[in-house]
């Protein structure tokens, strides 16, 4: 096991419902910096669970998850929150934009809780990010005035605006039509190229899998080689 990866997962086990459902059964994974990795597998194979553990939203029953050199299961809830705040971006299947905020405000959101940003610099960073994802001129639109693809672009901008080390994307194309989905994947790849952020995508979309640089298949909570 190398320790130069941005994420290292070592022998992680995770069960739900008091051990009745074993979501992960000894998973090892090393994600290098700037990776574009797809976690593939049928639903219930443990993709989301693994993403949650990497994102510090949950802790493993056994094994360890190390993100940016910090072992998550040794961290308190508060410390994991801080780690997420600074290092991890999230993209969700249903975009999860805040409906009462404009596109720009949604993108600004992660910066609101980071030190060192002024109102002005937040706005600048958000607008720049929105330009990068191709949404120039739509900064002031609320989510319901944007298409699904546009919303996911906002979500990508939001995940990237704080320049995290990793972006975790849970089924990012599941709610998009084929073409839009591909465009979104392409955008993510481009962003990885431009910013050097590692992307870990969970998906069961064959076209996304096709475009991934690294593919990890999960079956019944285990990595299938």
């Amino acid at each position, binding site marked *: 096991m190398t320790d130069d990866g941005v994420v290292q997962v070592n022998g992680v086990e995770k069960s739900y419902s008091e051990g009745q459902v074993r979501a992960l059964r000894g998973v090892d994974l090393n994600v290098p910096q700037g990776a574009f990795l797809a976690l593939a597998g049928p639903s219930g194979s443990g993709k989301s669970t693994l993403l949650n553990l990497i994102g510090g939203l949950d802790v493993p029953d056994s094994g360890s998850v190390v993100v940016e050199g910090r072992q998550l299961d040794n961290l308190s809830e508060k410390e994991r929150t801080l780690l997420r705040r600074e290092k991890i971006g999230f993209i969700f299947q249903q975009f999860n934009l805040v*409906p009462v905020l404009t596109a720009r405000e949604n993108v600004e959101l992660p910066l609101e*809780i980071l030190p060192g940003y002024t109102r002005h610099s937040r706005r600048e960073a958000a607008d720049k990010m929105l330009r990068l994802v191709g949404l120039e001129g739509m900064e002031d639109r609320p989510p319901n005035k944007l298409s699904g693809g546009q919303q996911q672009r906002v979500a990508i901008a939001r995940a990237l605006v704080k320049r995290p080390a990793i972006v975790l994307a849970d089924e990012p194309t599941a709610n998009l039509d084929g073409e839009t989905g591909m465009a979104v994947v392409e955008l993510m790849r481009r962003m990885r190229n431009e910013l050097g952020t590692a992307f870990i995508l969970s998906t069961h979309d064959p076209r996304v899998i096709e475009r991934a640089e690294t593919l990890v298949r999960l079956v019944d909570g285990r990595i299938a080689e």
Partner: protein
Amino acid sequence: MIAIRLAWRNLQRNRRRTVLTSSALAIGLTVLIVQLGLLDGTDQQSINNLVAYDVAHVKAFAPGYMDQDLPGLDHTLSGVDSLLSLLDGTRDVVAATARLEMSGMLIHGGEELFTRVVGVDPVRDGDVFGTLRAVVEGRSIQDETPVALVGDRLASDIGLGVGDIVTLLVRSAPGALNTRTLPVVGILSSGHPKVDQFAVYVPLSLACDMALLPDAATEIAIRTERLKDSELVSRTLARIIPGPDWRAWDDLAGDFIRLARMKRTAQGIIIAVLALLAAVGIANTMIMAVHERTREIGTLRAFGFSSSLIGRIFLWEGMLIGLIAGSAAVIIGVAVVSYLGVHGISLEAYGDMDIGYPIRDAIYPVINAGSVISSFIFGLVLSLLASWGASRRAARGQVVRALREGSL
């Protein structure tokens, strides 16, 4: 700041609900402000009337006088002239006067009414009481000529007018009945029912004659520099002029003060009920908000929003509801109180009924900054408490569940 901004935006998300919730609280707070205005006005009016026409600042009685259910002539002060000249030279005493008050019947033709016959010093009384200046028809008592002043309600009860001749029948101090027939020279209207409805004023010398008590009084009434000094002055006088039973105004107005306190307690209960209703409304709205936004809460938590920050967003939502409702209530409440303060709330419906307060005709609510501010703060605290539960719930939720299942 982000918590406030998000809270504010969230309130706009479901405007109808926000308006309904705020309205419920605003109505409650408006009622509170108007009620407090009413109570404050009633208190102020009552105290003004009590002091001007009834209890003065400080009074002296013969020992035992105040212990009677219906004070009569069994305990009176004697040597009144020397007592008054002693008081005239006393610091803190601005003015002093003697009164002799007794029960009696006012008779006019076929009408006979139970009344309090009050002997007043034509020269001194006006320096302590407003009674002799409250004449609205005819003239006041100017000297010792045997004439009577009658309250307007008493006058209208038995159809009396200026110039009419009435007979007063009293029981003198030794026990013999005594009557006097004399003209009514003036009609009084003070706003204090005790004066306007139940009393007949005559010169003190006449009252003494009728009571068969020369140079006596049932009370010496005193005006001090300031009403709030009356307690202190009363104690000082008790020390330097021992003998009489010295009482400050608030002691004499005990019934009123007890009543006012009781009304405030009763009002407190009404407010508690209103508050509970408004709080249930807010709590309900907030819990619904938390439920609806579970996924959003999960998203924010994923971004690194701390649980306390999430909680604060919901607390602020509640607070903002309180702020909106409070501001509306202050504007409406102050407007209503101001309007009523000018036009008054008529007590006509009560007629001659004793409402327990020394006021009649109308109540004029007043705006008391303290009452308005405390109502506003009360609204804020209430909404804060009401959104507390929802806030805790939002803060404590599991992020993973929130994101996956949309429930906390």
